[in-house]
């Protein structure tokens, strides 16, 4: 036991003195999420504002119809109405970016409205521009005009406007804000936790196995009076710890990011903070612990097989996709935690984390997830220990 502690202590000291590992373990998870969230939110906000405030160039063909609508459009400060463009060239004009949109009122519009029929207005726009804001802004004006026409018809027919609403739906959503956010945004959290757990474990695993081989320190260490299993266990514990620390630090990063974004409604902010309360965090980390053990055993096995640090890096980096894939499946709608999905590694962590965050996790399924992960962690550690005993592995390329 004391030898294990000695090895663990040394490997941990060595690891946290490595700038690259320190960056991947602490700086990256702590800052990536806040930076991404703040930059993305600000960028989106400024683009939306720009699209909302932009004066739209609207080509209008009314042929003497819909005078109220024409008046509303021409009198609006946000639109610059352009007349005199032939109706059949609207599409081309928009594609050429000569105008932002076009409104073409049918020649018989007023007549149709007068006989209580439906008059046709064609709206040309490009949905791929400015978050579809052009359509929304013009639809608002046309919609207001339509409402006015409907109101006029009710007056003319001496009818109560309420007759078109025979049913009034009163909605009562019993899901708490925590649950709603947990089931939607909450899906993103396991994605981050699992990835940071893997990335946090990756560099120490490469450094403590392939790096040691390359530097020649592994050969020296093997001459010390400790068993290979003790050596492996010391390294393994450090890799597990760095993976977990990285995931835990990413939680701090998320909380920091959420607090930095100013326009999140207070009740939503409270819900996000409630999602990441101590109990939830402990429960999520307890899931990540066996997953981190699996990552550590697997990464160390790959790393010890590699001839050099560089080879280990090129062998391990593509595995990130293999890790991300089950997490992404967990984000698909309809994929929920059940007896089968609880057995699938990584996917089960993703789904269980989502349920834990939403506060809807079932104890039985959670225990199944734990059992599956502990079994996987145990098997992978056993495999790694066997792998570490092989001369062909340890002395490959040495």
């Amino acid at each position, binding site marked *: 036991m004391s030898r294990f502690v*000695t090895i663990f202590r*040394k490997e941990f000291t*060595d690891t946290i003195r490595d700038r690259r590992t320190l960056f991947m373990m602490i700086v990256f998870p702590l800052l990536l999420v806040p930076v991404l969230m703040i930059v993305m939110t600000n960028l989106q906000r400024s683009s939306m504002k720009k699209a909302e405030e932009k004066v739209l160039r609207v080509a209008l063909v009314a042929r003497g119809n819909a005078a109220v609508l024409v008046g509303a459009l021409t009198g609006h400060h946000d639109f610059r109405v352009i007349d005199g463009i032939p109706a059949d060239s609207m599409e081309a004009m928009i594609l050429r970016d000569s105008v932002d949109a076009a409104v073409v009122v049918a020649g018989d519009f007023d007549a149709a409205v007068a006989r209580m029929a439906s008059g046709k207005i064609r709206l040309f726009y490009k949905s791929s521009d400015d978050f579809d804001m052009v359509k929304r802004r013009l639809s608002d004006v046309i919609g207001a005009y339509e409402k006015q026409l409907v109101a006029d018809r009710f007056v003319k027919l001496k009818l109560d406007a309420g007759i078109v609403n025979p049913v009034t739906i009163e909605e009562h959503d019993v899901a708490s804000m925590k649950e709603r956010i947990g089931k939607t945004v909450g899906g993103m959290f396991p994605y981050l936790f699992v990835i940071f757990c893997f990335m946090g474990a990756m560099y120490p695993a490469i450094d403590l196995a392939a790096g040691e081989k390359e*530097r020649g320190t592994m050969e020296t260490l093997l*001459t*010390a*009076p*400790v068993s290979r299993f003790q050596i492996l266990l010391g390294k393994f514990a450090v890799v597990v710890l760095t993976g977990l620390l990285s995931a835990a630090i990413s939680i701090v990063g998320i909380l920091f990011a959420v607090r930095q974004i100013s326009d999140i409604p207070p009740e939503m902010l409270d819900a996000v903070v409630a999602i990441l309360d101590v109990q939830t965090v402990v429960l999520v980390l307890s899931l990540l612990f066996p997953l981190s053990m699996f990552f550590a055993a697997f990464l160390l096995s790959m790393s010890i097989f590699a001839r050099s640090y560089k080879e280990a890096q090129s062998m391990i980096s593509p595995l990130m996709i293999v890790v991300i894939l089950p997490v992404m499946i967990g984000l698909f709608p309809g994929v929920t935690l059940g007896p089968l999905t609880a057995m699938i590694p990584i996917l089960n962590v993703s789904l269980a984390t989502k349920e834990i965050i939403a506060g809807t996790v079932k104890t039985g399924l959670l225990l199944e997830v734990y059992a599956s992960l502990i079994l996987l962690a145990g098997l992978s550690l056993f495999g790694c220990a066997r792998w570490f005993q092989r001369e062909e592995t340890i002395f490959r390329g040495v």
Partner: protein
Amino acid sequence: MIVVDKVTKTFSVSRQQRREMGPEFKGSRIDAVKEVSFTCRPGRIFTLLGPNGAGKTTMLRMIATMLKPSSGTIAVAGFDVVKEGVEVRRRIGFLTGNTGLYDRLTPDEMIKYYADLYGMDAQTYGRRRQEIFGLLGIHEFAGRRIGKLSSGMKQKVSLARTIIHNPDVVVFDEPTSALDVVTSRAIIQLIKRCKEENKTVLFSTHRMGEVSLLSDDLAIIHRGSFIFNGTYKEFENQMQTRSVEDEFVRLVEAA
């Protein structure tokens, strides 16, 4: 004492290695060491001489319990390397040309780490540290990160690491390869000191100058087999050429 009895070490050969060895190599296994026997005694320096790839490192790795012999037995200080590996490692100090140090630790941390692995108590470690750090002149840079030290300083730390636990048996695997003259000399001095302290010293090299300077006993290994095994005096007596180097080349070419 090291007693090696009819030891063979066979490695399986990968497809890539087969390609590297050329078309004349047939089969999927290769004997890196073949039926080798020798004895290293306390207070004597046994030199293992051979060209690159002759099997020296494989032999030394088996003695240090890193590799298991495919057949035959090796006993170090009376302990079997396969059955009593930990006991063997307790009594052995192993040094390679590659310093094998952790760049992000200080010499103090590095040596303490190995002292802890060897199970040394604080008092013994303190005494031994003073003695060895003084002998090798490590005190002045004991607190600096190893990565920032010169190669000579690193080799001194490596030497300290090898002998901190006062081992009965010391194995040096080409310790002076790629080192400057001053540092090489420090290592040679230490090897001589180990002999004076009645330790068993096994030393592998391909530098002829070191052979005549240090050897009490000598074995020449070529393609995994010994082509000479005896005392250095016996080697000198049977020489048919003028220098150790010429004699070595003659024996290798004749084999």
